[in-house]
């Protein structure tokens, strides 16, 4: 089977978030970047597991500049067989989806994986748009995926429960927690990754229907007030006078 895993670069989870250019651009200075955890821990690892049990090939794809190569190497170290980087700034979900679809449309992938969202912009858009461009079924928030022949049995996370579905390949799937377990690349994998092909392709036309007007940080949270469990009167007073909820 042939698997395509879309990987994205996101700020490390403890990065301090600030903006530049009159609050229209994310300030990347001093920020460490990682592979988006949903792409890495769940989408990529499940694809690698399926390849290991069923045979085939895992291709990792990223839309981004050359500085993204390190996260692409990490995907190769974890077990992707080869990688493609589309040399363009990932400015909108639609643009990224179009570029991925441009590559995938003639490649006969059985399953196209993404994470359920990136942990920076949390758009959850790319996978659905890729499916639309490729005219394939799209299964979101998958927490379990088993293959039997060309048929996949999938659990989707839904509000308050799980939806079980079946779908035949090819399809697009977005991975939620539980689809696989994080794999830490070992030194052998890191060295093998150096010899795996990383193909850089130049982008075709990029639709850009969206532009950022402004980013805002959420208001700073106030500190928590601890109230002694014996002192209910104080709790009632605070709820009444300070937070004014009763």
């Amino acid at each position: 089977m042939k698997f395509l895993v879309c990987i994205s670069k996101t700020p490390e989870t403890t990065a301090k978030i600030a903006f530049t250019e009159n609050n229209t651009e994310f300030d990347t200075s001093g920020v460490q970047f990682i592979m988006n955890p949903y792409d890495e821990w769940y989408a990529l690892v499940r694809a690698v597991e399926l390849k290991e049990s069923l045979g085939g090939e895992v291709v990792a794809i990223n839309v981004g500049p050359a500085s993204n190569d390190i996260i692409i190497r990490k995907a190769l170290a974890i077990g992707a067989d080869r990688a493609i980087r589309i040399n363009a700034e990932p400015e909108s979900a639609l643009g990224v989806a179009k570029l991925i679809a441009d590559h995938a449309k003639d490649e006969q992938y059985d399953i196209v994986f993404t994470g359920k969202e990136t942990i920076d912009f949390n758009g959850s858009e790319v996978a659905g748009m890729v499916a639309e461009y490729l005219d394939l079924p799209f299964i979101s928030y998958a927490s379990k995926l088993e293959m039997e022949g060309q048929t996949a049995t999938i659990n989707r996370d839904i509000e308050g429960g799980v939806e079980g579905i079946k779908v035949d390949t090819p399809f697009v799937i977005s991975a939620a927690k539980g689809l696989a377990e994080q794999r830490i690349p070992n030194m052998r994998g890191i060295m093998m990754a150096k010899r795996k092909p990383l193909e850089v392709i130049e982008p075709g036309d990029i639709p850009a229907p969206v532009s950022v007007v402004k980013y805002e940080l959420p208001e700073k949270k106030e500190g928590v007030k601890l109230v002694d469990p014996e002192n209910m009167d104080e709790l009632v007073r605070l709820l009444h006078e300070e937070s004014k909820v009763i």
Partner: protein
Amino acid sequence: MGQNDTISEDVKFSTKTDQYEGHDYYNLDDLLSEDHLLARDAVRAWVKQEVSPIIEHYSNKAECPTQLFKGLAEIGAYGPSIPTQYGGGGMDEIAYGVIMQELERGDSGVRSMASVQGSLVMYPIYRFGSEEQRMKYLPKLGSGELIGCFGLTEPDHGSNPSGMVTNIKDDGDAYILNGAKMWITNSPVADIAVVWAKDEEGVVRGLIVEKDMEGFTAPEIHGKWSLRASITGELVFEDVRVPKSNVLPNVTGLKGPLSCLSKARFGIAWGAIGAALDCYDSALRYSLEREQFGKPIGGFQLTQKKLAEMITEITKAQLLAWRLGTLANEGKATPAQISMAKRNNVHMALEIAREARQIHGGMGITNEYPVMRHMMNLETVLTYEGTHDIHLLITGMDVTGLNAFK
């Protein structure tokens, strides 16, 4: 042995998340390659997953987490710079350095488990062994199927290894080995020992001794206040018959063991930075959380002095290690240069552990925080693999040409 079986009900594993972040004040990451960064981040993730949740428990109980031997093999921490066909990682010396740094960030004892296996067991077999010896032992050592240890130090010969009394006598197709070695990391759990002994002409030779050879025992040394999660023992040889095929054919004299120590000391020069970074990281975070007199203690000048000096010393040590790594990659790092880095960086780490302990106040002496454990570990690291003072004399001899050892 499944270590989980031995954990008593009343001792809980740490539920605290390891919040460690690396610190790179001079953007030294720019000097590292993709492989180095990937290796470092992989080992950091492994330490957070496998070491941090259990290390206080094992250290507190003075018990070796032997399950980590396999995990260290899987991540590729044994002999990363040994070629892959011999079970190593085929990486360069800086990769070896950053791996040791991240392991020691977790615990000096865990780093010791790995550096003994890689630098003191696999390296001499790779460098001085016959092709048969390499193929027989190295892949199994690399995969953790075999655990090794290294016997040089004796009860009466530490800084002066040339005075060793452990000896071999020719007995046809074998040598008869007698003597004792002391302070041997991993020895009670080791399957093989690389042992250095004098032949009848007084020439130091290296031998691979296997644990089931008659007359060979490896009793554990108890009562350590340092490296408590690492197992340490003796090696005792009473008329042990070691086949001549187990002698390392390609080295004679002390340069054999000393070249292994250079390898290991190189790893320690990097490793100590990891322990220092963990102490600094914990102290910095604590100084911003802990309030006294109505503000975080990080806002007071004396705390800032400590933190500023810590990151300055760490940055200098990182530069020293990086430059030593580039020299080692070119095959140009001298033993004296390695001594300087080992001595400087371990002392730096120990001083930082002590300062970090003060910033943590009373909490610093508990196992809620890693600093006291690092501090106690570093007391060993300060004198093993060449004492702080001996390394000074090596530098002294190197710059004056005069030998002050005797």
